[in-house]
């Protein structure tokens, strides 16, 4: 089969109607560009919104929940072993929030190949004293370095330095909202009263801004050592172990496994934040739907133009057939025309789409709620470009299929005699 000849004829037919060809190709390019840009932008936003919560949420959280004991004393009494015991008005006991054996558990977790990292944590309920008023708040005692590595802690510390919480003794990183209430600047000392009634001065080394106002008004961070000192607890006292996994999707299974293995409560991220996945999925579906609609419209444009071209080229098709080109050759010529429009339109569209994405990526986007975001977010995942490219070829192939078949079925005798 003379591929080169078929290419040459297709090229000549295309170039003979350069204007039409360009219109068709621009249609494809435009829809592909929009498709890629839309998906990139939408997914950028998705990532941003998900990241807001997901970045700072452990995939699995190990802790002791305050709840009534499952094993009530009567169940241990030998006389009532086989009976069904009804106990009314059960209260939660003074169970310790501390995680037993936190050291060995942490070691075991660190050796698990599925685990990306482990960060211990303890929380302390406190009152911040500002003159005569007391403001309730929570101090999270964290391993600052691990927190920065696993949960992007540094990104959320908008003023001051995150690592100072570790390096300076008795220091604290205040939530932005809390700092405003306390009117505390960096370098100031704030007074904290623990639930046990002890008073403690802490030096402010930074502001923390999560993007969620309610959190910023209550939460603050300090090093584990400082928090332990605050609570008057020994150095092995922690209340939470935060686990980040290599694969987020394994969290539910892993949480269940740890629960049994360590005899502890474990909560996975999917259970804690199920609404986020739903939102992301719906946004993705919408952007795909819009993108595909654009492509279908462009496909109809190509279909029309090819149909018109075939009508115009009846004579040429007839003469090609009379001089020895078969229906298959003619079919290939027109399919090739459609595919070249799709290919070049697609390539230009992908480049333009990338360009639009870069432009959007550089538009300033400042909002008090999102301290780490300076411009609109865009996701440059190659998958979108791949889908866009494949789609441009598929739609143009489908758009060219029927006109090409029509051209291949043209009866040269009718055309030649019909004059």
């Amino acid at each position, binding site marked *: 089969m003379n591929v080169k*000849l078929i290419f040459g004829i297709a090229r*000549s037919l295309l170039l003979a109607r350069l204007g039409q060809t360009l219109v068709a190709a621009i249609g494809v390019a435009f829809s592909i560009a929009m498709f890629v840009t839309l998906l990139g932008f939408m997914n950028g936003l998705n990532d941003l919104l998900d990241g807001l919560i997901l970045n700072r949420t452990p995939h699995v959280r190990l802790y002791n929940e305050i709840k009534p004991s499952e094993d009530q004393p009567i169940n241990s009494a030998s006389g009532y072993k086989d009976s069904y015991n009804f106990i009314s008005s059960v209260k939660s006991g003074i169970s310790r929030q501390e995680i037993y054996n936190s050291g060995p558990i942490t070691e075991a977790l660190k050796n698990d190949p599925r685990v990306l990292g482990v960060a211990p944590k303890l929380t302390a309920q406190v009152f911040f004293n500002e003159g005569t008023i007391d403001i309730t708040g929570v101090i999270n005692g964290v391993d600052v370095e691990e927190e920065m590595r696993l949960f992007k802690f540094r990104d959320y510390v908008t003023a001051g330095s995150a690592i100072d919480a570790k390096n300076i003794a008795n220091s604290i990183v205040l939530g932005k909202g809390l700092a405003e209430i306390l009117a505390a600047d960096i370098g100031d000392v704030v007074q904290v009263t623990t639930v046990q009634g002890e008073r403690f001065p802490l030096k402010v080394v930074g502001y923390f801004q999560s993007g969620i106002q309610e959190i910023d008004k209550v939460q603050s961070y300090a090093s584990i050592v400082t928090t332990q000192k605050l609570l008057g607890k020994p150095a092995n006292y922690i209340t939470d172990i935060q686990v980040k996994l290599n694969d987020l999707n394994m969290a539910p299974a892993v949480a269940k496994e740890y629960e049994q293995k360590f005899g502890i409560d474990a909560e996975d991220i999917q259970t804690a934040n199920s609404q986020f996945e739903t939102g992301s999925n719906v946004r993705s579906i919408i952007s795909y739907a819009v993108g595909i609609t654009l492509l279908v419209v462009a496909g109809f444009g190509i279909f029309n133009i090819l149909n018109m071209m075939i009508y115009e080229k009846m004579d*040429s098709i007839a003469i090609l057939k*009379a*001089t*020895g080109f078969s229906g*298959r050759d003619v079919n290939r010529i027109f399919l090739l025309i459609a595919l070249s429009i799709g290919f070049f339109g697609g390539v230009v569209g992908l480049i333009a789409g990338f360009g639009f994405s870069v432009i959007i990526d550089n538009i300033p986007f400042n909002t008090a709620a999102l301290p780490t975001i300076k411009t609109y977010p865009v996701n440059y995942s190659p998958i979108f470009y791949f889908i866009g490219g494949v789609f441009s070829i598929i739609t143009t192939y489908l758009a060219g299929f029927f006109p090409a078949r029509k051209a291949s079925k043209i009866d040269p005798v009718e055309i*030649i*005699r019909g004059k």
Partner: protein
Amino acid sequence: MQQTILEARHIQKQFHDPVTVQVLTDITFSVNKGEFVSVIGKSGCGKSTLLYILSTMDTDYTGELLIDQELMTGQSDAQLAHIRNEKIGFVFQFHYLLNEFTVLRNVMLPGLKLARYSEQEVEHRALERLKMLGIEHLATKEAYRISGGEKQRVAIARALINDPHIIMGDEPTGNLDTKNSEHVFEIFHELAEVHNQTLLIVTHDQGFAERSGRIIEMEDGRIIRH
């Protein structure tokens, strides 16, 4: 014994739309190599219809058609296209050049399709044929920029590119003035005399037909003289 190039055996054709009309009835004849045959007859006598059957483009008939002693009837579309490409050259009343190409490229296309020779050789052969017809100076012009008489000569050059067994013409002079008609006839005549080229030309130009080697006259779908 002359070599038979084209042979028709009992060819019949009917049109069914809107009513059944017998267009061709029991057409049987043969053409030998080197013959210059004219087919004449009044409008509507079926001579063009016959030509399209003989050229393998119309396959809706009964009877048998042989080209180069090979049976054409019942062959597939692709095979027939190949046979047209290799063995038959066409000249039509309307010139039917491809306007997207240059004159040279138009002449080359059937040769490139056949791919018997390399592209350079096909180009060389195309130029040879243009020179033979005295129009090599047009080679690089766009096909739609030349005159009607020139177009017809280009079409003849294209018909000759693959050294066909037979050249078929459907009123090749029908759309030309006297001077150009004369020129085209002379080309055909020379092809037949000098190059021993077989020609089968449908025409209603009595003068043209009388000067050709052999006349087949048709009336109402039958051959009445051959």
